[in-house]
């Protein structure tokens, strides 16, 4: 019998076994929410997360985060700062590795290139090196310029959402890769991509220029898996759903009303035993309203 090319498709339960407490986990854009719900359901703790916005906020609210490599934690919709992030930060409950996008991408590129650091200019003269002593102010040996040395940032696992992949981890984002997705993928030890659909290898070969990640370590078929975020070419964000979360998280952070937020997290993240049960709770009728145009 001839040996066969190995499939990289995992079911969600198997994918979950690749994630563990204490890991450094990077989250792409749109946030791969179905995989994040797995983290919450499994009650992982002490994570270092590279994430932004409400995905970061949910993981903090669910008690999964010890440290965040953070460049942006906006809330959206009139809430300038993600509420659970803000509360945890102000109470000293999470450690913040203060940075910004150019610094973050430099650290990720250093990891991908197997370098101890890469230099970056953005942040020179700011408070970032004082708030984050891992950022070293250096005089570059070529031109004598003052720059920051950004140490390699090495995620154990990067979690992404994309439109499609074949069984061998050839991933194609629709409408371009997400914000920092390719930086996060190149830097990580393991990259898991949840996709709307698994397509034939021939579909990938028909347009290889569209392949954004050539060898994801694992792909998980999770249609509608970015909900309540968008998935390009498939559906838009569920604004009412995001607003519900934001309102509950704000009430918890500002008025100490934690029970309602905890119930929301249980209802949407912990009680559904699988992604399909989550989708049943959301309901087909609601999902079908989230068309792009």
């Amino acid at each position, binding site marked *: 019998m001839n040996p066969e090319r190995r499939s990289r498709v995992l079911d969600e339960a198997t994918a979950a076994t690749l994630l563990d407490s204490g890991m450094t986990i990077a989250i792409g854009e749109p946030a791969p929410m179905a995989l994040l719900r797995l983290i919450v359901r499994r009650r992982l703790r002490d994570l270092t997360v590279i994430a932004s916005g409400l995905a970061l906020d949910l993981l903090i609210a669910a008690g999964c985060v010890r440290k965040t490599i953070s*460049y942006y934690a906006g809330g959206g919709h009139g809430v300038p700062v993600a509420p659970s992030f803000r509360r945890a930060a*102000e109470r000293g409950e999470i450690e913040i590795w203060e940075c910004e*996008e*150019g610094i973050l991408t430099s650290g990720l590129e250093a990891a991908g290139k197997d370098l101890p650091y890469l230099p970056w200019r*953005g942040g020179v003269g*700011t408070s970032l090196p004082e*708030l984050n002593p891992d950022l070293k102010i250096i005089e570059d040996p070529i031109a004598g310029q003052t720059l920051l040395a950004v140490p390699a940032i090495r995620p154990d696992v990067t979690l992404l959402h994309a439109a499609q992949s074949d069984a061998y981890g050839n991933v194609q984002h629709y409408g371009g890769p997400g914000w920092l997705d390719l930086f996060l993928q190149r830097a990580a030890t393991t990259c898991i991509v949840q996709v709307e659909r698994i397509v034939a290898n021939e579909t990938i070969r028909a347009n290889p220029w569209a392949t954004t990640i050539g060898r994801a370590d694992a792909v998980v078929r999770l249609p509608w898996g970015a909900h309540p975020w968008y998935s*390009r070419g498939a559906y838009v964000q569920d604004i009412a759903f995001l607003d519900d979360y934001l309102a509950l998280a704000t009430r918890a952070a500002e008025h100490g009303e934690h029970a309602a937020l905890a119930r929301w997290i249980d209802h949407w993240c912990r009680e559904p035993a699988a992604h399909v049960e989550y989708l049943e709770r959301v309901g087909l009728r609601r999902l079908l309203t989230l068309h792009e145009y």
Partner: protein
Amino acid sequence: MTVDCSIAELLACFLARDLNDGEELQVGVALPIPEAAVRLAHLLHGPNMELVFLGARMNVHHLAQIPLPAFGWDNRVVRWTESYSDRGHRFDQVKDWHRRVFFVGGLQVDPFGNTNLIGVGSDPRRLEFRGPGSVGTPTLTTHVGRYYIVLNGHTPRLFVPRCDYVSTVGWGRGGADARRKLGLPGGGPRYVVTPLCVLDFTADEKRLRLKSIHPGVTVEQVAAQTGFELAIPPDVPVTQSPSARELDVLRTRVDPDGVLRAR
């Protein structure tokens, strides 16, 4: 002629007039006034402008409407995209950012236009107010040809003698050579716009100076709401009101839902 409009509309028109054809205009999330300003300039006098939102680069001068997004991170802007910024490598061509224009908000701004998005409070591990973080503003303001500081308020808590933390360097500790000494190639902040006034910087010291006050605002009011001494010229003009045409294009083609009119 005075035109009945909101301060946000006034500021969008003011900023639009200051943007030049051929420039690249990048706006981050949650800044509706600059979002409106770049669209307005593009429609009115910028057929060769390029707008950059959420990593998408576009020229949409031909469209009847370029409406503001309904949601801060509205991915539907990609329908206008001609290319994604650098195909995932978003900071690989900063050498050309001298023709790019950018906008920043802030929790604090000091007399030299340094700003803070990190937080307020003396102990960084127990901030009194934790801000959203620096996003990409340190890198952008280091390199872009010029940028504008856009604030939703004008109070002594916003305008402070010294920022608790600096996320973007304007003119450092002052002086026209401040940025060169720090090795920052970009042109620095041009104006600070607020609900009360427009501020620019003195030529030599690079200190904030009152440039114009909005209709109905007094110089004394601005001085009282600023937590340090502003440079105030003997004659301070009133900020130019939008023309009927500017306001018509703004209201019918950029902001049909009246987001700015309500602010």
